[in-house]
């Protein structure tokens, strides 16, 4: 695998750009691997990369039923932040943020990580108090956080509704300057390329249909491209976790729900930051192409359909216009949907399971993209050592039974139950 650099750009430019190679090898499944990861999304690919990079385990396959970048890693709104309140989340997402900061260099792939800052608007003195609480927790964990008053928010984001007629007048905001966005496809491609460079087989168009067992232990998978043996199997198929877990005889506290995202026609630079609306569920950023990318609530009923409903479209656009009346006449270019594993406490599950040989990474609700590197890092460690890394001790499957939940619903994701 040749490295990408200024020199490789110049060399290929001089030769008419005819010499570029595929970013990752086209692999056919071998008879068996040390580790098989089901799901070639961001988390699965990152796991494969860190297995090779951190643990020297290179006899690894990533099985993807569709194509790389076609699932949730290419369907999210690309927001990255680490403004979490509860122990377990705070440290995990900050670890993820640090990995994001070094990702382009680590992968030799420009993921266009842009730390443009994220602000969440506050609309009452009480809300600003809870944001101060959050900011204090963040700062005591060494994470940057600022509380802004109304004038400071106005200076940062003058396009928000500061008029006398605003439905929920902005009183302030919590701001994290290191938050931002990244190009989500590049994250998938970058991890795939780097993992493939380490010898990982990335097998697209390969759907897992069942598990192979030897006694109680899972020793491989049955796929649409034949049987593949595995020392350990890692499940990283958020959205469809229940479907595959059921084949392994595992019952989970997960419901699949549909989340939509939206993009408007491109406009000139308007929104410098990532903005989240504190009075409703709505968040927005502007892509490099100029489109305003935004999202809001779940569709609200169990779904595996990967396409959105117009009812939520209207609700999200109403929230958009309540916060930014100046975009009311923009046309919507596209809207699309992805399927989320929703857990009862809105926190993910990275866990050993009662099924021998099967390891679980799922339940990302709709906060999975920002967690991609840390999730891969920790899941790789779990697959390599068969133990739970300290950083993700709070994310075990047993927490629902024992009551040790990390129920940070205020941070974003929630199922209809929460």
């Amino acid at each position, binding site marked *: 695998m040749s490295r990408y650099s200024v020199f490789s750009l110049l060399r290929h430019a001089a030769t008419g750009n005819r010499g570029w190679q595929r970013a990752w090898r086209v692999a056919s499944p071998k008879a068996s691997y040390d580790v098989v990861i089901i799901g070639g999304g961001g988390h699965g690919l990152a796991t494969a990369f860190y297995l090779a990079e951190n643990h020297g385990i290179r006899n690894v396959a990533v099985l993807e039923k569709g194509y790389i970048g076609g699932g949730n890693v290419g369907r999210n709104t690309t927001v990255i932040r680490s403004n979490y309140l509860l122990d377990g989340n705070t440290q995990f997402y900050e670890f993820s943020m640090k990995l994001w900061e070094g990702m382009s260099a680590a992968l030799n792939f420009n993921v266009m990580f842009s730390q443009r800052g994220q602000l969440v608007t506050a609309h009452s003195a009480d809300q600003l108090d809870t944001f101060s609480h959050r900011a204090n927790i963040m700062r005591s964990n060494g994470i940057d956080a600022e509380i802004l008053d109304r004038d400071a928010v106005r200076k940062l984001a003058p396009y928000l509704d500061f008029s006398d007629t605003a439905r929920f007048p902005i009183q302030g905001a919590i701001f994290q300057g290191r938050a931002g966005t990244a190009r989500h496809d590049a994250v998938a491609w970058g991890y795939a390329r780097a993992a493939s460079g380490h010898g990982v087989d990335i097998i697209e168009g390969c759907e897992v249909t069942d598990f192979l067992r030897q006694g109680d232990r899972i020793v491989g998978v049955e796929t649409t491209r034949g049987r593949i043996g595995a020392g350990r199997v890692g499940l990283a198929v958020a959205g469809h976790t*229940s479907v595959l877990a059921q084949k392994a005889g595992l019952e989970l*506290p997960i*419901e699949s729900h549909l989340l939509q995202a939206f993009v408007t026609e491109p406009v000139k630079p308007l929104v410098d930051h990532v903005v989240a609306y504190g009075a409703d569920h709505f968040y927005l950023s502007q892509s490099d192409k100029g489109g305003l990318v935004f999202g809001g609530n779940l569709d609200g009923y*169990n779904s595996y359909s990967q396409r959105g409903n117009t009812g939520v479209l209207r609700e999200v656009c109403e929230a958009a216009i309540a916060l930014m009346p100046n975009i009311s006449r923009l046309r919507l270019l596209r809207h699309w949907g992805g399927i989320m594993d929703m857990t009862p406490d809105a926190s993910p599950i990275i866990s050993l399971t009662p099924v021998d040989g099967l390891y679980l990474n799922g339940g990302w609700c709709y906060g999975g993209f920002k967690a991609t590197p840390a999730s891969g890092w920790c899941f790789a460690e779990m697959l390599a050592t068969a133990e739970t890394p300290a950083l993700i001790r709070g994310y075990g499957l047993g927490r*629902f039974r024992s009551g040790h939940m990390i129920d940070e619903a205020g941070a974003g994701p929630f199922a209809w139950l929460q």
Partner: protein
Amino acid sequence: MLRIDCPCCGVRDHSEFRYGGDATVERPAHDNPDLDSWYRYVYVRPNPKGLHREYWQHVLGCRQWLVVERDTVTHSIHSVSFSRRQRA
């Protein structure tokens, strides 16, 4: 927009309804001391890809609780009935 054929009010947009989740989950008896049954009742969901029996309440209509059989992939609705009949 899903269209739910309410047995009381006729076909209405789903935005008139409130979702109530999986209708196959059984509540354990009130004096059941088995923690596992309560864990399963509160948290565990079969989450099927395909036909799903679920509660909807017609909050902006007759306010009846309904049991709807809906396909979670195609959203086609196979049956709608009053939940109280199912419970009886």
